[in-house]
């Protein structure tokens, strides 16, 4: 392994090389430090039930843990980032398999898990051809694995569920890990995650403030048109401005392309949210799990990120690409 690859994978000393990284981290810390103030004011002023108050504080405490789990691997190095994304993929798949009942199909679950591990390896190795090949190959393997019980009844269901699970949590979310092959991956990933989570909060706040018309009442009764539009209006310029400082003087660095990126993050993020709402409503569940106090399951928290990852990866890839000048096949090419 040459020094460039080593420094990218493990070089925590480069954590704050980029000003955008510093800016995003400072903003997150400031938000987390200031957040108790509005919570305190609302819980005091409004007539809030003790359960609701506890949920708000649970939610806040969980945010601190989540922020640490996201920020530390990203700052520590690309190796830890890809490891964290791989773990997130596996845990999200686990939740999905448990709520859909796919976890009872051991062969298919095993193939999906192997697929997710290989996606993480391809990202770590910076081996794009393997990364691309893994989707059709894993799908083929799932279709073959579904044959093993020799029971045609339910074949389409178990294979269909397996393919959807791998597509969403292996392949789509895997794009987030692959972005860590860029030398400048820290601000890029922080921007995407920060913007997607903020987009959710904007949608909620705008919906509360001036949302009247229901957006998709059958899928998610609390979503309003006002909330959705408000999130787009607030998130788009935010992403555009920060992205300008990340991709300064590149093909992406013009107002139209930057706004396009912002719209993608906001719109696709909200669709990801609706996708999980649909899955939950189809199953008759409120939350996917009870893992994070105040939030529900990991999927409830990271649903918006799942579809944004491939959209941003290929949008940025069209203009600039990821990992220019970085050594490829770091481990497999030795």
């Amino acid at each position, binding site marked *: 392994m040459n020094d460039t690859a080593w420094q990218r994978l493990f070089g925590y000393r480069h954590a704050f090389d980029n000003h955008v990284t510093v800016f995003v981290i400072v903003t997150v810390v400031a938000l987390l430090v200031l957040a108790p103030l509005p919570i305190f004011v609302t819980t005091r002023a409004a007539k809030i039930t003790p359960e609701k108050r506890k949920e708000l504080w649970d939610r806040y405490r969980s945010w601190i843990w989540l922020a640490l789990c996201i920020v530390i691997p990203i700052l520590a190095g690309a190796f830890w980032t890809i490891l964290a994304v791989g773990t997130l993929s596996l845990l999200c798949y*686990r939740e999905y*398999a*448990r*709520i*859909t*009942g796919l*976890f*009872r199909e*051991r062969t298919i*679950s*095993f193939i999906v*898990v192997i697929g997710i591990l290989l996606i993480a390896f391809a990202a770590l190795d910076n081996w794009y051809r393997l990364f691309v090949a893994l989707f059709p190959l894993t799908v083929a393997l799932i279709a073959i694995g579904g044959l093993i019980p020799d029971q045609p009844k*339910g074949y389409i*269901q178990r294979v269909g569920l397996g393919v959807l699970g791998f597509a969403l949590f292996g392949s789509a979310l895997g794009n987030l890990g692959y972005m860590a092959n860029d030398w400048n991956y820290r601000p890029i990933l922080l921007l995407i995650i920060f913007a997607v989570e903020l987009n959710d909060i904007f949608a909620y706040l705008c919906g509360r403030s001036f949302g009247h018309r229901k957006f998709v009442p059958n899928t998610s009764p609390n979503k309003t048109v006002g909330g959705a539009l408000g999130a787009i209006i607030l998130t788009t310029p935010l992403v555009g401005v920060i992205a300008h400082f990340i991709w300064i003087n590149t093909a992406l660095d013009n107002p139209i392309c930057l706004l396009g990126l912002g719209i993608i993050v906001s719109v696709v993020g909200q669709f990801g949210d609706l996708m999980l709402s649909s899955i939950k409503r*189809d*199953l008759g*569940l409120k*939350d996917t*799990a*009870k*893992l994070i106090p105040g939030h529900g399951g990991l999927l409830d928290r990271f649903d918006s990120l799942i579809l944004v990852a491939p959209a941003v990866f290929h949008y940025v890839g069209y203009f600039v690409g990821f990992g220019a000048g970085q050594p490829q096949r770091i481990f497999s090419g030795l």
Partner: protein
Amino acid sequence: MEPWQLEPARDTGLTPAERFRSVRRESGLLESMAQQACFSVLRLYFSIAHRLTISGRDKLPAHGPFVLAANHCSHLDALVLGAALKPRHRERAFPIAAGDVFFQTTAVSMFSAIMLNALAMWRKSCGPHTLAELRRKLQEERGIFIIFPEGGRTRTGSMMPFKHGLGMLVAETNVPVVPCGLIGTFEALPPNRNVPRPVRINLLIGEPLNFAAAPNDRDGWSQIARSVESSIRILIGQ
């Protein structure tokens, strides 16, 4: 077009700590692999350190649901029975373990649930709800339960009278009960010891008993308890 049959895990909505203790728990891929590995290692250990012999293994039903009922002398008992099962049976095998020993703290219950696939039975407060849930699990999930109907380990080495819990699970059902006699586990690891002695262990498996005709009431339960108890007494010669 027929709708898909989507059936979420029965433990959906429980926190991890609640899930380990719940009888609704369903193992996932990793837990199954951990259990297979754990019981394979135990099988090897019992063969080497305790020269474990199993007789009558052919009497085990081909697939679940069934109940393995045995005399209880030691913490090794459930491990011997689990290790004696065929690998394809182990995935559905649930040792029914005392909640106050194996599920007291989250760390211990995590170990009992992940490595042994044990289900908690709270001796002092086991309500009809838990028993109904266990009865359902046995039949619907084609489970294999490992049960010690004495309700605790013998302190003297001689078998104690059986309690009604076993009867409550199998009365009026076609679930066979396989009587199992354990010899040597008391000498290997009696309740007052912490480290096992390398003593020979024998597992004797008897003919499966069916209690479809036994009524699901107090009389039926004691009839089942007596019947299984006498089968095991014959097996171990007590």
